């Protein structure tokens, strides 16, 4: 609220030039035009699709690999150096390279998101699984659990709520990568609209785009939180 108030005072009061910062009402109006006349919904759809697609591919590979690394020391020793190194490579720096390799099509967007989220996911999941309470593992063994069922019945369920939390966090980062990818080379998407608007000095549209990103991020965050409470009711117990 405070944010909107300051913004309104700054723009309506004439303290900031309209060229640099549009006022809230213009922003809402042009947002409406964007959606009704310029097919902005399709842009939003494209961006959401890219984030979800790239993120799902990353998660689908990172989950089993992360669990395997957390559960078996030799597997961790084998992959850890490479993954640790790779996670410090900024995904955005790969964009020019990816454009050369796969062009500016959808593969490039998916690849940026994949690089940006995959290595983070693997390492964080491996750590969580590796930190499973030792006494629970021992209890499972004394109840006759085999190594395979230890992974399935103890390591995974024990780490599941934290893994869901990691997914939620990294999905947020994936949003940053997609916009960067779209700013650099794209013909659709929210980031593309933002670059276009910059050329037209349409700050109202840029701000609208940013707010849309924020709202979508917030919604996906809430969905994740809701799902966590729903699927892992035990994890919240005793925290309050």
């Amino acid at each position, binding site marked *: 609220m405070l944010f909107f108030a300051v913004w309104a005072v700054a723009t309506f009061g004439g303290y900031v030039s309209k060229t640099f910062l549009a006022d809230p009402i213009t922003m809402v109006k042009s947002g409406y035009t964007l959606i009704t006349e310029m097919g902005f919904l399709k842009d939003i759809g494209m961006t959401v699709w890219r984030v979800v697609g790239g993120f799902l591919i990353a998660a689908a590979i990172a989950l089993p690999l992360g669990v395997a690394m957390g559960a078996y020391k030799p597997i961790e020793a084998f992959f850890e150096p490479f993954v640790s190194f790779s996670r410090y490579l900024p995904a955005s720096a790969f964009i020019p390279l990816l454009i050369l390799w796969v062009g500016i099509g959808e593969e490039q967007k998916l690849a940026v998101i994949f690089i940006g989220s995959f290595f983070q996911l693997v390492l964080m999941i491996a750590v969580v699984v590796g930190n499973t309470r030792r*006494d629970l593992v021992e*209890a499972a063994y004394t109840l006759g659990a085999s190594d395979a069922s230890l992974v399935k019945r103890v390591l995974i369920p*024990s780490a599941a709520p934290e893994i869901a939390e990691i997914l939620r966090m990294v999905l947020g980062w994936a949003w940053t990568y997609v916009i960067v990818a779209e700013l650099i080379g794209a013909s659709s998407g929210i980031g593309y609209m933002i670059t276009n608007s910059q050329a037209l000095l349409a700050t109202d549209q840029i701000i609208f785009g940013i707010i849309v990103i924020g709202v979508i991020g917030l919604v996906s965050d809430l969905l994740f939180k809701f799902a966590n409470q729903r699927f892992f009711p*035990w994890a919240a117990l*005793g925290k309050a």
Partner: protein
Amino acid sequence: MSILSIRGVSRTFEAKHRAPTLALESTNLEVAENDFITILGPSGCGKSTLLRIVAGLDRQTSGDVLLDGKVIDGPGADRGMVFQSYTLFPWLTVLENICFGLRERGLPREEQLTIAHSFVKKVGLVGFESHFPKQLSGGMQQRTALARALANNPRMLLMDEPFGALDHQTRELMQEHLLSIWEAERKTILFVTHDIDEAVFMGSRVVVMSARPGRIKLDREIPFAHPRHYSIKTTADFAALKGELTEQVRAEVIASQALVA
């Protein structure tokens, strides 16, 4: 006929930049079927180490542990364990925790539930079947852990100070409870504790261990008849036995403190 034979078992902990620590001297112990052996000793005397070796969670440096004549090599469902820390699986309900080992054995679901329900009843948790561990008191969690271990129908039960984290009153009730379960089922039990009262009240045999490096200093039959009522704790015989053991343990505690100082 002994069910468990501990023969010349010792444990040395290797450490970097330090001399290795001898935690457990070469130890022999024969456990007969239906024995309820309580192992007493000062903290750090290697009594938990001995129990963990029997459980297969730790490996001895020398010697052998035999269960029914077969060498123990790693943990297994034939030795149920109850830990001092609360080790129920927090994502499973009381009933599902008790089913854990049964499901591992691949029993049909119907059978799992029948067995689990019967143990819920034995440990007095009817009405709490679908509670999660964090919704239970410490005493109830340990009763569930006991039910989980017993439901697996192990050859013997290993208990590592299972009531150590409970308050005094709950602890005494749990002792009576465990004793009555043992009197009914006659499971062979190895029970580690540092509480002399507890050791004398429940055990059919008390083993006292010395300060580090641990070794068995005293092995004594407890003559009180079963079923035992909690009121025996106030009898003169009980007090005399407790007094004798207190002297023994005290000497070891002082010795172990001298080691630290």
